[in-house]
């Protein structure tokens, strides 16, 4: 690799450490780092203790055996996603600074690719270390797990890069046709394998399923290349198992690297375009909308009638609603598609007397998850308007009215989607009507509470979604602290309505409608102070000092 690129890697690594250390110098920064490290320790220490205390037991051996059987399928799935979706594009993603400063500099394309691979190595090692500790109980030895995961991640990265390079060489239409053909063959083999498994499993448990997968020739052929890597991950002895399989995995990776370098595709233009696209995506994430897409011209066909003035809240809610629909339609369609899939499975499976419980569980679980997902990942309310705070501050509207308008758009849209999903699940199991009606009634105050609290905390403690780099413990810690605070606040805010509902049942006698009605009324009453607090937080928000980086 070019010495100048080595120098850049060295300077960048030094700069990352410098930035991390600079943050630790303040009390707040040090606390955030400690909080992050404590959180990581909480995740990892139990795994390590379990692995040490359970070492040598037969059940641990069985876990490793089952994991080894299914791991190649996991790798196959990830490889398919990388090859057949846009996720693989990241393999040739260069930051905007790299595009501006390196692409017009005298570097060979191969040198830039090697730089790109080298740059990601530290991240791969850190990820492998974390994953190997998190899944310690699944491996026969930690070292095998670590080395195997590292080589597997490197292989996936090289595979994505190989695909991207091939796409540059082969004409686009031919490349897409070849990709579709390959996907068809893989899917056909997968279906054949699954048919073999289905024929053999006749109402048996996990043991029979494991045996069937093991005996299915088609499935085993399909995952054969990935098995080299999983053999490394699950190797028992250092020699010859780990050494042998790791050498084979390394040889595959070197082969892929040689293919990439030999192709020497002219990828700079595509990489610059991908860089621009991903940079825009990152910008949207920073604006609070990781799942949002730029509004397309098709979105312009969507119009909404203007609502009543409502003291000014109407137009604000209208703008929120219109933006949400135009930038997040794909998420809504995907959600509805998923709900239809669940509905079809539920109807086809026909679980008999369990159907009502299953349908209500799935419907309520899915709608509750959507609230958290949409509140965090779509640019709704103040979180999505962070870069427009100056405009909002200059509007001739009372902060309370603004807060209501900002929150109302997202809450109403989300509630509407949830009601449709609940109706769909109710159609699959009509006996679930009472539970679904209650869920539909709770959807509005529940969404209002989550979105309201999210925005309240955001305005007091503005944190952009995770866009930090390696060693950026402050950003990670800030996000972690934000979510911890949110969940801590939710405990009393949902606990009080449930408690008062229970109290009402104690006084009147137990009845679900009494419990639900009381809890609903208290939850709705709680919304008012939350909205007032959001308005107060908006009023005190100072864009000149509180705007996060």
């Amino acid at each position, binding site marked *: 690799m070019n010495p100048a690129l080595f120098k850049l890697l060295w300077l960048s690594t030094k700069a990352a450490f410098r930035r991390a250390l600079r943050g630790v110098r303040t009390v707040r920064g040090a606390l955030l780092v400690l909080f992050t490290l404590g959180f990581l320790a909480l995740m990892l220490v139990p795994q390590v203790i379990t692995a040490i205390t359970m070492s040598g037991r037969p059940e641990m051996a069985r876990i490793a055996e089952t994991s080894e059987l299914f791991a190649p399928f996991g790798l196959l799935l990830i490889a398919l996603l990388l090859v057949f979706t846009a996720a693989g594009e990241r393999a040739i993603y260069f930051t905007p600074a790299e595009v501006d400063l390196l692409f017009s500099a*005298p570097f060979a394309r191969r040198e830039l690719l090697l730089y790109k691979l080298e740059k990601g190595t530290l991240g791969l090692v850190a990820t492998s270390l974390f994953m190997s500790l998190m899944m310690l109980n699944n491996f026969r030895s930690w070292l095998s797990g670590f080395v195997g995961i590292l080589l597997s991640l490197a292989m996936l990265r090289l595979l994505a890069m190989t695909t991207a390079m091939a796409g540059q060489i082969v004409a686009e239409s031919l490349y897409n046709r070849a990709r579709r053909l390959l996907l068809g063959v893989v899917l056909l083999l997968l279906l054949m394998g699954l048919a073999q498994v289905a024929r053999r499993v006749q109402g048996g448990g996990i043991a029979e399923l494991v045996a069937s997968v093991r005996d299915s020739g088609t499935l085993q052929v399909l995952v054969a290349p990935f098995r080299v890597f999983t053999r490394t991950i699950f190797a028992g002895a250092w020699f010859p198992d780990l050494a042998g399989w790791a050498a084979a995995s390394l040889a595959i990776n070197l082969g892929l690297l040689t293919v990439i370098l030999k192709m020497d595709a002219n990828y700079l233009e595509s990489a610059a375009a991908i860089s621009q696209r991903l940079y825009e995506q990152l910008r949207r994430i920073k604006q609070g909308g990781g799942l949002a897409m730029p509004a397309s011209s098709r979105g312009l066909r969507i119009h909404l009638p203007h609502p009543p003035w409502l003291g000014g809240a109407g137009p604000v809610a209208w703008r929120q609603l219109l933006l949400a629909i135009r930038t997040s339609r794909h998420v809504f369609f995907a959600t509805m598609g998923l709900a239809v899939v669940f509905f079809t499975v539920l109807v086809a499976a026909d679980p008999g007397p369990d159907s009502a419980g299953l349908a209500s569980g799935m419907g309520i679980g899915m709608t509750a998850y959507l609230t958290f997902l949409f509140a965090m990942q779509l640019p709704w309310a103040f979180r999505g308007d962070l870069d427009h705070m100056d405009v909002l501050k200059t509007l001739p509207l009372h902060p309370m009215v603004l807060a209501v308008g900002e929150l109302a758009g997202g809450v109403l849209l989300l509630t509407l989607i949830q009601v449709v999903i609940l109706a769909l699940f109710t159609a699959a199991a009509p006996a679930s009507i009472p539970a679904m009606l209650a869920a539909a009634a709770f959807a509005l105050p529940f969404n209002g509470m989550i979105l309201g609290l999210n925005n309240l905390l955001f305005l007091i403690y503005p944190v952009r979604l995770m866009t930090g780099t390696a060693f950026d413990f402050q950003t990670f810690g800030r996000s972690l602290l934000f979510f911890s605070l949110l969940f801590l606040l939710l405990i009393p805010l949902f606990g009080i309505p449930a408690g008062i509902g229970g109290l009402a049942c104690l006084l009147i006698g137990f009845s679900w409608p009494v419990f639900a009605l009381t809890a609903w009324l208290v939850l709705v009453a709680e919304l008012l102070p939350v909205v007032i607090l959001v308005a107060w937080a908006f009023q005190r928000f100072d864009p000149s000092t509180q705007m996060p980086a």
Partner: protein
Amino acid sequence: MIHVADYHKAYGSTVAVAGLSFDVFAGAILGLVGPNGAGKTTTLRALAGIIRPTRGRLSIAGHDVVDDPIAAKRELAYIPDDPKLFDALTVWEHLEFIAAAYRVAEFTTRAEELLQQFELVEKRDTMAQELSRGMRQKVAICCAYLHQPKAILFDEPLTGLDPYAIRTLKASIGRRAAAGAAVVVSSHLLSLVEDLCTHLLILDKGRSLFSGTLDEARSRYADLQGRASLEDVFFRATEQAPIS
């Protein structure tokens, strides 16, 4: 020094540049003007080797940017309209890296002179992420000048610069050209082009409407009796059918 012959660039069925040809000789400053979407940035990015031409030949100091990109890029500096820097690197580290990339042996004195010239001495150890838009632009210009390129491509160079920096930049462009560099300045600021440039290229919808010296551009319109400003020439050229 900069040679473009029959340059075409198409994205699917959309033609961004069609059959563009021009030369910029050593010491000349070419003003590249045109409405939005005319193909100015596409042309500069192709000259910088970032995007491939669909057809045609582009070369820098005799090196073809497609066949011999490294040799071409060694003689070139490209300053995009909104230059992105490495957030966590300091100003000085950017210069250190550029010196290594272009193999500038004794860069320290030259780098310090550039920092002095663009009033960045106090920002020497500041990380790029802490710089204002104008400061980042100045750092990008210092990086571009460090290896003393024979061809310099500016895309909207004045964006974000304060009046002092604008004066410094304009003077520095003049000095670079006088020292033998070929300079291309793409800008919507016609006054900048009029002040600075020796030659003019007017683009519209990917096609050249005029290519020549500023005097030739003025004399193109007899009815303006040689008193035409660049603004008059630009509007006349873009509102009429191609004149050359």
